[in-house]
């Protein structure tokens, strides 16, 4: 299945400025699997290992809904899902 990944701010920069990525994952994959695949395939210049933990500052949305209110890192993905990684920003 194909997942669209949108990254924001510092995470976007860690992916070389690419705000949108597409990634193929096996059926039944979760957010945790997606993060592992992203780290393996794209080697972002940022540590994604704690993303999705309860006290993380980085919001992970699946089709606009935060995973904290779904199944967290175990949230199952479906073909066509859009997953967003959104860190806080401080500019003014």
């Amino acid at each position, binding site marked *: 299945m194909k997942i669209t990944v949108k990254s924001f701010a510092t995470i976007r920069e860690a992916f070389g400025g690419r*705000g949108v990525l597409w990634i193929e994952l096996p059926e039944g994959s979760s957010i945790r699997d997606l993060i592992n695949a992203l780290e393996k395939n794209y080697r972002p210049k940022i540590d994604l290992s704690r993303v999705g933990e309860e006290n993380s500052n980085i919001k992970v949305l699946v089709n606009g809904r935060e995973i904290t209110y779904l199944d967290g890192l175990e949230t199952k993905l479906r073909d066509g899902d859009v997953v967003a990684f959104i860190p806080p920003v401080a500019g003014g």
Partner: protein
Amino acid sequence: METSSRSSRPLQEVELTREELERYDRQLRILGFGGRAQSRLKKSTVLIVGAGGLGSAASIYLAAGGVGRLRIVDHGEVELSNLNRQILYTTKDVGKPKVEVASRKLLELNPEIKIDPIREEVTEETLPNMLKGTDVVLDCLDNFKTRFLLNRACVDGSKPLVHGAVYGLEGRLMTIIPGESPCLRCLMPRDPEEHEVIPVLGPLPGIVGALEALEAIKLLTGLGRPSAGRLLIIDGEDLSFYSVEVRSNPRCSVCGKRRG
């Protein structure tokens, strides 16, 4: 007599001058706004913390819209590298204290209002005085550390706070109503990494600052529904807007106790 004039001449009761009625004519015509909302704005004080890109846009709209008193805090001077986004300032203002220039420009825009320029650093010690007598507070800062100080002071002092922030082509906005909605600490449980210099494209603080002004006007007048418990995320790259639910953290170190 006042009472009898209410229905026939609704604008008479709100103590707006003839000039003010003309100045604010287009917003007075908004259904549900009118003289009552305008009068509330006139009686209100808004604290704008930071007179940079966000503070420029927010203060211009609040001054133009007739908020009676704007208290503007910034200890810095105008720098050339500010001018891509800090629309209160022009090239000849470089080197001058921001709050002084801001005060003069805003009074030129609207001499009906009052401006309190405060050229001080925002610290735990200075914040209580800055907050005194204010109705709404705007976070127009450029770092996390001071934002968390402001968040705590606003939660402790029960002051509605409008949080805005930008990065590159992105923006964030959330309104915090102490005791009712999640605070900045609920949103960011950990201290994020600070960046000395943050990339910003000018229109983004313009958009977010204008939205902060809109939230302030809504809070002051009771118009509409503020973005409390909802984080607005703006991506200017593909012009997408996400409004994401944020819930209060019952164990939040800042607002958790207040909620009980």
